[in-house]
């Protein structure tokens, strides 16, 4: 994978040139080790290795002759440099055929390496270390070997162990790690406030010490049941911060997001179900995940003794039972109906986990409901009356702002100050609610979103939508 690593620089008189490479004996560039052969031609690539100034300080890679050269050219300005500029680039040479997922890992490594080299030159006790090294070489003196040391350490250890630790000075240590790529690299996952995060890798307890405060605070509430908004409320964390923290978890592969589970939700099997059925190991994993002690089954609480007995006779949780239960998901009935239809077989099964497992593995998908309203234009007019009533300020918002600015943690004891208008009537409140709902009726907002953002249940939302205030509101199941 890693063929070589080299340090190219911009010489004030000679222009771009190769300064150092590792392995030193490799004919990397034509003429680089007094060999007429070479993998690459430096002069052809110099524009990319030491690029125009405005393309510096960012990742830049080029493919040539079957190799991919990953660099992160650095340009430092300073009056003490010849031409007021010091430019260099530490590049790794990889096979062009490298998988894209690995490429991401290498890009991160190269970026960190570049930042380290920049800091060596620009900051702290090592300030000017690279330019001195170059000057000594140019003057024909004996080099400190810092560039070679870095190149050697990075090349040999990264190739061998996938990580490296190179100490350059007492305070400057380069630590690099080539993370194994994930199958489906997540770039910037979207996390909505109605998403339900589920940890798929444990956050070990010692990690909490190094987690940021928000993550540490929300982590106990990430349980695969609560949605982001609820987690933020439970953890007493500002909602955008909670979203950001959860996104970090998703991005790092520690969590994934699910839909809200409730008994009105509708699920559908996907074509991947065949894969699940054919994988006995997966089915066993499922059995282990969904099985519960019948005493904990909320569905069984209302059963009489005879039903309980009958159920216990039916149900050792076999592979066939699992498959048959999943096969019975019909794509149109809500979970509640599914539970009623298969009450006996669900005796020792956690229904939520049954569906969640399918979603995690990708052979079950949630069908979201979207609403298209035919008559939303006059709703907002009516709402303008309702808008007369509102708190002068949102007490929760004020509370949070104060908490985040001063650190005090006690909510205000006084009730929100109202305007002098009389309290709204039931009709005014309904109009206000209708105005809010009307914004969601363009067919692009799922009911989960409405429920979470408006703090309502699905049943209440649908009841309001079917009240006739919105004309014939069409509920689409997608």
């Amino acid at each position, binding site marked *: 994978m890693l063929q070589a690593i080299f340090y190219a620089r911009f010489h004030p008189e000679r222009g771009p040139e190769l300064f150092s490479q590792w392995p030193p004996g490799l004919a990397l560039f034509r003429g680089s080790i007094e060999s007429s052969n070479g993998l690459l031609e430096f002069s052809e690539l110099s524009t990319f290795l030491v690029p125009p100034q405005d393309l510096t300080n960012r990742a830049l890679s080029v493919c040539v002759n079957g190799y991919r050269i990953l660099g992160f050219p650095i340009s430092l300005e300073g009056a003490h440099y010849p031409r007021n500029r010091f430019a260099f680039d530490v590049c790794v040479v990889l096979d062009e055929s490298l998988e894209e997922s690995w490429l991401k890992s290498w890009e991160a490594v190269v970026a960190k390496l570049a930042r380290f080299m920049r800091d060596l030159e620009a900051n702290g006790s090592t300030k000017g270390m690279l330019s001195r090294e170059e000057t000594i070489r140019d003057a024909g003196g004996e080099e400190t070997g810092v560039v070679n040391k870095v190149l050697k350490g990075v090349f040999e250890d990264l190739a061998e162990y996938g990580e490296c630790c190179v100490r350059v000075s007492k305070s400057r240590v380069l630590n690099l790690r080539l993370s194994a790529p994930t199958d489906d690299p997540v770039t910037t996952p979207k996390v909505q406030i109605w998403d339900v995060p589920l940890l798929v890798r444990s956050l070990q307890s010692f990690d909490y010490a190094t987690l940021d405060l928000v993550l540490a605070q929300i982590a106990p509430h990430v349980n695969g049941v609560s949605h982001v908004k609820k987690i933020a409320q439970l953890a007493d964390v500002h909602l955008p911060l909670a979203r*950001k923290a959860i996104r970090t978890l998703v991005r790092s592969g520690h969590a994934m997001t699910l839909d809200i589970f409730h008994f009105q939700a509708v699920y559908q099997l996907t*074509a991947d*179900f065949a894969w699940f059925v054919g994988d006995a190991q997966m089915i066993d994993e499922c059995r282990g995940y969904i099985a519960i002690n019948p005493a904990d089954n909320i569905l069984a609480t209302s059963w009489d003794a005879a039903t309980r007995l009958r159920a216990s006779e039916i149900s050792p949780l076999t592979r066939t039972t699992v498959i048959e239960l999943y096969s019975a998901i019909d794509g*149109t009935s809500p979970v509640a109906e599914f539970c009623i239809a298969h009450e006996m077989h669900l005796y020792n099964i956690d229904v939520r986990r049954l569906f969640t497992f399918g979603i995690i593995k990708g052979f079950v998908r949630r069908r979201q409901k979207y609403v298209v309203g035919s008559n939303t234009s006059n709703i907002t007019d009516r709402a303008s009356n309702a808008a007369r009533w509102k708190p002068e300020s949102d007490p929760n918002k004020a509370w949070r702002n104060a908490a985040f600015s001063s650190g005090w943690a006690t909510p205000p004891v006084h009730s929100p100050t109202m305007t002098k208008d009389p309290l709204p009537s039931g009709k005014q409140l309904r109009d206000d609610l209708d105005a809010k709902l009307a914004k969601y009726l363009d067919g692009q907002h799922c009911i989960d979103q409405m429920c979470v953002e408006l703090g309502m249940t699905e049943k209440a939302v649908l009841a309001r939508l079917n009240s006739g205030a919105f004309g014939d509101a069409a509920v*689409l199941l997608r």
Partner: protein
Amino acid sequence: MGYRHNGLLAVLLVTRSRPGPKLVFCYPLSSAAPDLVSRDQSSDYEDDGSNSDAGLSGQSDAITERSAAIAPKRGNPDHREDDDFVRQLGLGAGRSNDASARGPRHGLLLDLNSESLERVLAPGRWSDGKKFEIAVNGVTFVGHPVFVKNDRQPAKGPEREQRPRSPSADGQRVGNEAIGDVPAENESMEGSSNTPAILGSLDSTVSGDASLGTSATSSSSHGVFATERLDMFHVVFAVGSSGAKGAKVNANQIHEHVAKPLSTALEYLEIQDNYVSRESKKLLLSSQAEHRNHSSEAVYAKSELATALRDSFVSLRQNEVASVSLDHTALMLLIPESNTLSMLSEKDMFASAILLLDDRSSMLSSLSSDPSSPLSSLILASKPTKALSKIAASLTMSTTDILEMVRHLLHYRKARLIVPLHAGNVYTASPDLPLHRLEGLCVEWTHRFASLPGLLSLLPALGKSYTKWGEMAEDRSERDIWMEGLAWLIRKDVLVLVKTVGWARLPKQEHGEENQESEWTLITDPAHLSEAEEHRVDLMIEELGKTDVELGNRLPEILRLLDGEHALERFPACLGVKRAKFQTWMTVLKDRGWLRTAQVV
């Protein structure tokens, strides 16, 4: 097909002549990108710092994400999205936009300085005829540079009159325009610092006036024209990292299927008729008009190449076939989809129907061959309700020929292979139902199928329960229009077939085998039956044979298809039996408990 962009961000044309490289064309122009990036980032609080851990500049993510949210499309209901895309990236037709009015050769493109881009996108001769790929900050630029062999005689073209002109007169005319048009700040830029005007006319250069290649004659890239012979041209495609899942293309695909064939075609036209040289000059000239009029339409009105590049980009970005005309020569470009075809056996293909994705008559008229050609016959005979096996029989064509033509249609995205539509099948709202286009689809549906219920009545009804499509029609006489409507809805990704898949279910286990706790066991891999399973299947055949000999005989064949992947809806065509008979067989198996089915999408 629902709109899913593939991460393509822009198309650029860079040329090199004696004074140096020039960025001649870019679509879309993104000179306004930095403002948009900062706006995007500040618009969502949770995004703050989202890229800080990447170690790279986060701007590329913002660019690609921004473009990911936009859907450029010309000539269809998505046109509005195209406008959004163009607006966001800073290019607009007929708009007064300072950023776009400055033209592609100024400021920032894809958040990169256009002058620097010119330099890095005009590599040396080493790159001639090879794949060129660089990535800057997460944006990959892929092309296939072509170095023009300049030892040939200049060809006669419509643009180049042979009558001698006065270079000074011509130069004066253009020069005056240039003086008036080039922004003052550009005059200090490299290559144009000493020359406010063009010294020679286009024709004078082509007809042999020497260019000294000094700064005085340098075209640079700042509103002054090329007066030199073209040494190199390079069509570059910029690809971001945030294409839609499953639709994202990589640099190799872009090179292999787009950049390389396009460059090869342009090279041919350049050799034949200096096509690229002429078009580059037109582009440079019209960029001046663009500058004056604050409109980019002038570019497209004057340059066929600009239009071709723009249209290719718009189509390719949506993974559609780009059909463009270059010097009156038609060229089709497309990025092949990761192939579902290879997953289908010939038998499955024959059990499928083809759903034409274009209007039948326009497809026929676009064919260059005569109307009685096999391909025309296939298009005429095809019906989404008719399996290919039946079509082959009716046309008396060999299976090889039919499959070859079907592959051709699929490759050019003129058709899609589907399970034959049938009134007895169940259809439901597609997981990919394009909600953002729903309003337009409803209007189009009403316009096309006025006698059928509105889409907003139909979709909720289909969501309430799985209903056979035929049951939606109140009267059998309406069946045809309902089937036509179904084909349209499937073509538009509104509905999908709810597939019934199945497994054979074997009776109770015998002692000594695994899964003793099961009353039933499923055959999950019918292609590789164990000895015990084979034995039990033999018993099933024997038992079935007592009541239905034909079913008994065909059971092994049916079992092989009961693997959870093949849709039962395709079985009748695979087995060559009538659907009604097949349904009876399935009922027999179900009644005996030998069949477990599931409905999947």
